[in-house]
């Protein structure tokens, strides 16, 4: 009998111990995984960035990688390409997305259905999105058919260096405009009716009401959407990988593609890590700037 009581005590003690340490038991697995996959790799990248990799092994070179990358043109070129991609994609997505949100907020039949359809591109893999568009970019395919009346003959959508980047922007706009629309629409529908009505009674015109009443309600959401899309376009990889692999003539060589090539085509993990860290600094800078500018609370 005594033995049983003892073991019951042991069980109770174990439960007590568990409950005392519950906050760490609950949080440490997640924190551990995050540390292993975010913090440690960045530390490792710092070390790697000080080595030169070649067929004969790796050699410590200090900050030579940084100096080389910052003075040579390739990294700057890929930043420039990423910047162009970001500028065009984000502008179209935000302007079109907000416009469509306002339209859908008006008199529209089957609004719920339209919103559900808007989710479709968002959940499709960027890899598949790239394929959808590659099929439509086929020589003599759908896109050639659509622009047919404006051009003589097929357009070299993906093989002309002056067109290819825009042919990458289009799938991104297709996929991500609905995100802007859905977020802004959610904001518009949260504007209480009585606020609009009060402004109408005050005699405010439709556009005054839009600027003075509606806009403040969705300002934070627009900033959020901007941050999401700027960060999202900065990391574009799958669409470039599938459609152009950075070509033709490096005209679509975005940063992630340049890093991929440096590491896995040339085997120079040191230089690739250096580029990764430089990109990290830029990404954090942009995020911080947005957060400060908008004073949005996360």
């Amino acid at each position: 009998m005594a033995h049983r009581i003892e073991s019951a005590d042991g069980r109770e003690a174990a439960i007590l111990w568990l409950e005392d340490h519950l906050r760490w038991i609950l949080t440490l697995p997640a924190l551990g995984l995050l540390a292993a996959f975010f913090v440690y790799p960045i530390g490792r990248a710092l070390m790697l960035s000080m080595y030169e990799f070649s067929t004969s092994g790796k050699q410590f070179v200090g900050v030579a990688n940084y100096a080389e990358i910052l003075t040579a043109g390739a990294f700057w070129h890929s930043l420039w390409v990423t910047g162009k991609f970001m500028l065009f994609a984000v502008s179209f997505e935000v302007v079109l997305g907000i416009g469509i949100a306002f339209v859908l907020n008006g008199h529209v039949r089957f609004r719920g259905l339209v919103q559900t359809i808007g989710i479709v591109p968002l959940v499709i893999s960027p890899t598949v999105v790239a394929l959808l568009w590659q099929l439509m970019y086929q020589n003599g395919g759908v896109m050639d058919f659509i622009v047919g009346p404006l051009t003589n003959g097929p357009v070299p959508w993906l093989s002309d260096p002056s067109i290819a980047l825009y042919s990458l922007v289009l799938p991104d706009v297709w996929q991500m405009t609905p995100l802007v629309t859905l977020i802004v629409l959610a904001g518009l529908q949260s504007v209480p009716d009585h606020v609009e009505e009060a402004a109408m009674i005050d005699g405010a015109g439709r556009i005054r009401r839009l600027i003075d009443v509606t806009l403040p309600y969705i300002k934070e959401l627009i900033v959020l959407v901007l941050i999401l899309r700027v960060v999202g376009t900065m990391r574009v990889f799958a669409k470039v990988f599938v459609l152009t692999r950075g070509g033709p003539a490096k005209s679509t060589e975005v940063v992630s593609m340049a890093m991929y090539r440096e590491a896995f085509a040339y085997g120079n993990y040191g230089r690739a890590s250096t580029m990764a860290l430089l990109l990290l600094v830029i990404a954090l800078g942009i995020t911080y700037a947005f957060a400060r500018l908008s004073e949005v609370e996360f």
Partner: protein
Amino acid sequence: MATERHRGLSDQLLAHIETVYDRLEHYGFVPTLTNGIALLFVIWTLFPVYWMVAGSLRTRRELLATPPKLVSTVVTIANYPELFIQRPAFYQFLFNSVVVTVGSTAIAVLFGTAATYGFVNYEFPYDLGRFHLPFLILTTRFLPPIVTVIPLYVIFDTVGLLNTRVGLILAYAAFNIPFVVWMLKGFFAELPDSIVEAAVLDGHTEIGAFFKIVLPMVRPGLIAATIFTIINAWNELMFAVILTSNTQTQTLPVALATFKTAYTIQWELLTVAGTIAMAPVLVFAFLVRKKLLRGFTMGAVR
């Protein structure tokens, strides 16, 4: 002066737009216009998807016809078995995708839920749980993943996780924990503090109370977070393409991205593979369509 004139001009412009809008409304054009734009949006959004699905049900000749044929004359499912006959590795790719998605989702949701509950309900030194940790977790979301994947490749190479499904599972789990935490944070914060206390008074242990009372109450959020994680893991390309390099471990997106042979693209088969890759996520997304926005905005939109 200049600003006054500017203001006058913009007011004039606004007034002008108002008049145009009023006139449109007067003649009853506004509903037509908005419904028309909505319809265009729907067509523009659905057409590429339709084109691939319809393409998978066509013969190669009709699929690549010039000018393109909007509606098929013959519908055939022959391409579906043909994909698996010509590329038997697709069984393996599908299997890998399922294993990696299920494994990483299980870990991400389990660890993420536990961590969120911990952050919301317990005191941590230095306000770690209330402010700093959620903020840090959010920061990870803003990291371009290419930044971590290159050192990760070197790390995986040394610890033997390269070309393993376990490696991919752990990587995806880590990348989805931030989503889970941010999607669930609101749900847990909305629960009244007294719920666990009341349950403990009723004789439950604290752990028992969590499973029997707290979890069922956050179920909608849990389901949405789970499906969001499934979609992310199923769709991911970059980690998979870098961390795996043989058919034993590669997932569906990798197979799709590297489908091209040296000379041509077998579109009649690639459209089949693309449709297979799209179908499950569309079904899952439809199930939680109302809650999905929370995931895309890290919880900012309810």
